[in-house]
């Protein structure tokens, strides 16, 4: 028999955390209307001793699996944690049905600190288990899909409509979709424009190496200036230009709105984009390009067939950083009237309506995570299809 595996302290700690969070913090709150603060309900209040016992049994099982973390035990734990996450929305559906009187149209359920913390701890456990089991991308994406489907089904069934977040959404679903679209278009435009500019800059710097120092120091100074300040600094000159040249104003260029947002976001994107493009092109191993030239490839062939494909994964990394950064900064742009999902955040902060804040913040985080995951996967795929992108032979 193989020696028993040592206990996994990470899972044990997470299990203990989950227990204290579930027992100590209010999971949800029930609010009679949008403004009145709700009454926090703990697990005990919601389900009585039976629920507490059930949860403790589940956590004890997890702890037991973590104590003897064979591969099989870890796989079981993964299934358990995945099940918990998938059932979480349905638990909410059940709680909502019980706690909310259907006749009270404005009564709502707020997600309590305990639930958020639980979600966080469960996701950490999921990450840890996926790490330990070293599963490939397929099971990972499969699991993500299952969880997303479960959440979507719970939402589509209408059982979660009494959630405060959903109440806010239903109150302004048209605005929400418009803001979402707007946010995405703004980010896509920023990424597209800065990609073109960065490619031009990188090529220019490769040709005239003296440009390099100056360009990078200007770009990094730009990157340093806080977003709010940059939006503000652009306001005056843009307002002036729009007043001076009416056709600019007709195009929608004003001191506030999308114009300063676009310019500022492109300015921020240029540093990561240009740096990655330049470094990627520049770091292609000299012996590879030397061999390419020595074999009689034309400069164009060397660039398009060798240098660019080898640089692509690193350039993709630049696009990923830029896109994620732009998704977050576009939220700030809502402050200067650029619209997008940030609008809900700042409206919600202004009205002290926290669920409206969530309606803006959660999609932004989700989009950022999705874009990040998608680009990472793409770069990984590219690296793999290129044989890891190493320059020379390995062992």
């Amino acid at each position: 028999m193989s020696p028993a595996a040592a206990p996994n302290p990470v899972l044990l700690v997470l299990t203990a955390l989950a227990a204290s969070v579930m027992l100590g913090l209010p999971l949800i709150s029930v609010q009679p209307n949008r403004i009145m603060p709700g009454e926090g309900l703990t697990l005990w209040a919601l389900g009585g001793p039976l629920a507490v016992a059930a949860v403790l049994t589940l956590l004890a099982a997890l702890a037991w699996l973590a104590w003897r973390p064979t591969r099989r035990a870890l796989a079981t734990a993964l299934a358990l944690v995945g099940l918990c996450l998938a059932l979480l929305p349905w638990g909410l559906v059940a709680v909502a049905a019980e706690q909310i009187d259907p006749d009270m149209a404005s009564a709502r359920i707020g997600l309590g600190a305990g639930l958020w913390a639980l979600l966080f701890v469960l996701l950490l456990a999921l990450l840890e288990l996926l790490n330990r089991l070293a599963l490939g991308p397929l099971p990972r994406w499969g699991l993500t899909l299952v969880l997303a489907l479960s959440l979507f089904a719970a939402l589509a069934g209408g059982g979660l409509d009494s959630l405060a977040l959903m109440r806010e959404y239903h109150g302004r679903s048209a605005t929400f979709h418009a803001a979402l679209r707007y946010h995405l278009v703004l980010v896509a435009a920023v990424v597209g424009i800065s990609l073109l500019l960065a490619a031009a800059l990188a090529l220019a710097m490769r040709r005239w190496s003296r440009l390099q120092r100056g360009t990078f120091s200007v770009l990094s100074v730009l990157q340093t200036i806080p977003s709010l300040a940059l939006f503000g600094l652009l306001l005056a000159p843009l307002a002036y230009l729009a007043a001076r040249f009416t056709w600019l104003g007709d195009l929608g260029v004003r001191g506030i709105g999308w114009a300063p947002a676009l310019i500022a976001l492109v300015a921020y994107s240029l540093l990561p984009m240009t740096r990655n493009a330049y470094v990627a092109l520049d770091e292609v191993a000299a012996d590879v390009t030397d061999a390419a030239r020595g074999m009689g490839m034309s400069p164009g062939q060397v660039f398009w067939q060798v240098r660019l494909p080898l640089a692509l994964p690193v350039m993709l990394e630049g696009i990923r950083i830029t896109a994620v950064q732009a998704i977050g900064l576009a939220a700030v742009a809502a402050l200067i009237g650029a619209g997008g999902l940030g609008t809900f955040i700042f409206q919600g902060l202004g009205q002290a309506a926290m669920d409206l804040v969530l309606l803006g913040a959660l999609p932004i985080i989700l989009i950022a995570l999705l874009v990040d995951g998608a680009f990472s996967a793409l770069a990984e795929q590219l690296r793999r299809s290129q044989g890891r992108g190493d320059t020379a032979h390995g062992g």
Partner: protein
Amino acid sequence: MADERQAAAAKIELDAVTKRFGDVTAVDAIRLAIPRGELCVLVGTSGCGKSTTLRMINRLIEHTAGQIRIDGQQIRDFDEQRLRRRIGYAIQSTGLFPHWTVARNIGLVPRLLRWPASRIAARVSELLALLGLDESEFAGKYPHQLSGGQAQRIGVARALAADPEVLLMDEPFGALDPITRESLQDELLRLQSRLHKTIVFVTHDMDEALKLADRIVVMDAGRIVQQGSAEALLQAPADAFVESLLGGRDRGLKHAALTRVAERMRPLSDAQRGDQALETLSVAADDSLRQALSLMLWHGVDSLLVNDVEGQMVGSLSLRDVVVARGANS
């Protein structure tokens, strides 16, 4: 047959070729004529200009003054890319494209020359077979999946792909372990005995030069110090620098390594064969004198039997035969 060979290889001439980088003269008015089918090794310490000389031949570096001719035509008269496609090029780090498979890497120059796909595929198979690599195993691999020796073989195959007249090799085996290096050197000699390319080979390793070269060109500080066959260099090093490159007091052993036992052994008469059948220590006729000497030293004997390829006893070699005065036999 011989004529075909001549057509497949070219003569390279360097006429007072100079390369200056700013104020520094890297190569100083060197003259060199490499006949068709010769394996010429440029050897010297790092920074002596040997690599620069090599890279001037395919115009990766443009020479500052003088003329470089291939088959009597100045290389400046060619389009540089077309010139390079006619010249094979293999370097120490292989320069294999990491994002291409082995097959695609080998087919690079044929593709640049717009060969039809079927011909490229056939050529790739041929080359893999020539270099002793199993096509089904290697064709689809990526460079990082290869060992150093395999990658270098692929590098050589890629250089040979379009059947170039000239092959330039810049320390191709420099990064390999001694055993792999030796087997690749043997491979190169075997290939050269079949292909008869005009090869310019750069190395800093004098043993490699002695082993491979038809002609050794010793360079120092951008000039040619001495050129000639391995034998000639060992017999009469031009100066102290060449002598130190040749290993100083180890020179005798290096020379012994170049001489085959068959050249010094005493053939046996039939009667003698019977007499010495009891003696067990033997060397092959193809082995070097150095190996024979080593055997004698190790076993404390002063004579050995010599076998031919089939293991037939063909002669004997005594210590006296080995230490016969230099040049007496050549």
